[in-house]
């Protein structure tokens, strides 16, 4: 009898709790005026976004929540947040591959002011005639150089290249790098390039960003912008520049498996290397110690492809805004108003350019203070053709990891032809397999 009663008490308690939980769950779904919830991708700009959101709320009374996903967890956070009762009204995808996963959630932005504000329709992600994503920041990468050290090289009596303008292709770049490497003591550096670290904090610079060059030139040649299979026409060029990085660096090629992203940053900051492959986003960390804003410039990533004297820096976006089509209508409208304010108002444009240091593709944009962004703008003004970000069409993470592992093992085993064959296999065969697996 006692047991029965106990069971009954237990059942009542469980039922009570379940009901309570249900009510608590419902509490979130209030109605009324619209609000904005932005799931931000960039931890570096967390504070700036929160500040901007607060200013907007103060001015308009519309609540704007900014949540920033921890580095490397954006997709997971988004997957979890988007099924909640109050999902993000504004989120981002990283390009066509990201869009293909999230497009069911994307509101068509074709008739919005945000889309009309874009300086070029190229910066939108489309699906058929729908506009689903809008790039809000353009980033540029290339070979960042230390002007002070490079001027010292130009002035030296042993240098053969005497002016920056003459570094306009792979052969000149490799000559400069080799001479700096040979006279590194005279120049007071440890190597021409920073260490090409292949741990996960740095390997994306090579398996992803540098791999963009052979992909870009192949796409140009074939006249395509995405591919099921890749031929690897420019892989010998990829090898050329990888060899250059390995042979003229602050460390031996056999050590790159242990080098991190921080190692390269610190080498550049301390003036131990002249060249560092990275992009506009790294400005904050490479200034300090012996490097200041005036010392920074950026060269294109020359790989020895035909016509590269007109090649510019690699400019593109991995950050596209998408508005959640499943959010409540009033929330969508408020989100669109908020975005318009961000890209057109004085406060908004100033925050984007100054607080966040972004180069933004909107008509009302202010110029960014970032010296690397300026270098990119100068390059475009000089008539150089920017290289697109085709790495956003890479079929999967496994492809990048396979290429990265092969690049590393090539470096560890003495830069042999057999080693390079493995890079080719990973690049070409891996692409086809991964594409098939994920489509």
């Amino acid at each position, binding site marked *: 009898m006692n047991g029965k009663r106990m069971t009954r008490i237990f059942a009542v308690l469980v039922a009570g*709790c379940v009901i309570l939980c249900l009510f608590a769950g419902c509490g979130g779904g209030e109605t009324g005026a619209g609000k904005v919830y932005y799931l931000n991708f960039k931890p570096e700009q967390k504070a700036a976004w929160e500040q901007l959101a607060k200013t907007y709320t103060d001015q308009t009374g519309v609540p704007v929540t900014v949540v920033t996903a921890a580095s490397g967890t954006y997709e997971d956070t988004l997957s979890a947040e988007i099924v909640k009762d109050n999902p993000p009204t504004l989120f981002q995808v990283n390009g066509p591959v990201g869009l293909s996963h999230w497009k069911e959630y994307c509101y068509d932005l074709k008739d919005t002011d945000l889309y009309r504000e874009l300086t070029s329709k190229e910066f939108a992600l489309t699906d058929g005639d729908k506009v689903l994503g809008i790039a809000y920041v353009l980033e540029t990468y290339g070979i960042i150089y230390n002007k002070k050290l490079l001027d010292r090289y130009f002035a030296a009596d042993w240098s053969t290249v005497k002016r920056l303008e003459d570094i306009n292709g792979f052969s000149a770049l490799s000559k400069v790098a080799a001479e700096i490497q040979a006279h590194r003591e005279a120049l007071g550096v440890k190597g021409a390039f920073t260490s090409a670290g292949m741990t996960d904090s740095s390997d994306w610079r090579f398996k992803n960003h540098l791999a963009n060059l052979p992909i870009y030139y192949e796409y140009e040649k074939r006249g395509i912008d995405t591919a099921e299979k890749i031929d690897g026409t420019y892989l010998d060029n990829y090898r050329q520049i990888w060899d250059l990085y390995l042979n003229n660096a602050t460390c031996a090629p*056999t*050590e790159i498996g242990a080098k991190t992203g921080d190692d390269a940053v610190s080498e550049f900051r301390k003036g131990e290397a002249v060249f560092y492959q990275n992009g506009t986003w790294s400005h904050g960390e490479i200034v300090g110690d012996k490097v200041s804003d005036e010392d920074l410039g950026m060269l294109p990533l020359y790989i020895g492809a035909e016509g590269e004297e007109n090649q510019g820096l690699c400019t593109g976006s991995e950050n596209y805004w998408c508005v959640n089509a499943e959010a409540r209508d009033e929330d969508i409208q408020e989100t669109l108003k908020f975005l318009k304010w961000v890209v057109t108002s004085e406060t908004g444009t100033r925050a984007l350019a100054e607080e966040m240091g972004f180069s933004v593709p909107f008509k009302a944009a202010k110029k960014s203070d970032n010296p690397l962004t300026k270098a990119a703008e100068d390059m475009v003004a000089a008539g150089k053709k920017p290289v697109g970000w085709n790495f956003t069409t890479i079929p999967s*993470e*496994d492809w990048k990891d396979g290429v990265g*592992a092969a690049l*590393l093992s090539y470096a560890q085993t003495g830069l042999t032809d057999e080693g390079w064959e493995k890079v080719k296999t990973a690049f070409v065969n891996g692409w086809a397999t991964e594409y098939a697996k994920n489509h």
Partner: protein
Amino acid sequence: MYRSLKKWFPLFLLPTALAFLVSFVVPFLYGIFFSFCEFQTLDRFTFVGLDNFKRVLFSGQYNFWQSLGFTALFTVLSVIIINVAAFLIAYALTRNVPGRNLYRTVFFMPNLIGGIVLGYVWRTVINYGVLIPLLGKDLTYSSTFGFIGLLFVLCWQQIGYMMIIYIAGLQSVPDSILEAAKIDGASGWQTMRRVTIPMVMPSITICLFLSITNSFKLYDQNLALTGGLPAVTDEQGITHRLTQMLALCISDTYGNSARAHGTAQAMAVVFFLLVAVISLTQLMLTRRKEVQQ
């Protein structure tokens, strides 16, 4: 007192039961369900039957078998090394060694450092302290380096913990029995085999269970130390990560692309079954050997 306890215990159990339900049972059931689906988010899924399991087990496109082999070999070796070493140290430190409490503390300390931190610290130490100066190579150079490195780090971390459990077990062996054995003329080895080991069997059970599951589920040290490298891509374009263990394989598969979420989930279910079968078998086998004092 006892009666009112009996009457009210469900009330006190409720918070724990609820927490268990919300944070374990529900996600677990969800997980099993999603292993039969392709999914992007919790409300966007399509049922695909056994496709995910077929892909994991038979397609050869995932690193599952490779990492299972690596994990199994790793587990066998680490369980042996950890338990033998922990038992011997515990045995030594239950003798009258001067400063034995200090030693116990020192041996236990590595266990207090979190796995991921430990992994990164050891990666630096092994790379810059040993491999690069001596061989000019690093941990990612060959899978043997990675294997030994992982084995070393896990042993270093776990031996102290198991040692504490063995010490507790050894201390509970009554002196009277040991003395009786001595009077009966048992040699040191005989006492160990016939008296001490049967008496500490409960400790052996728990230590084996912990070390088997810990080794099998190892993730953070794997991620920090090698990240699965080195890797090779074969002619079919499939990338094999040579030092990837099962848990890392699941998370890498999940992160590879949105299309692979269901596949990774199926892998996790298979992984759960493996760990459950292995550890339950072990529990059954060693429990049988436990004796009453």
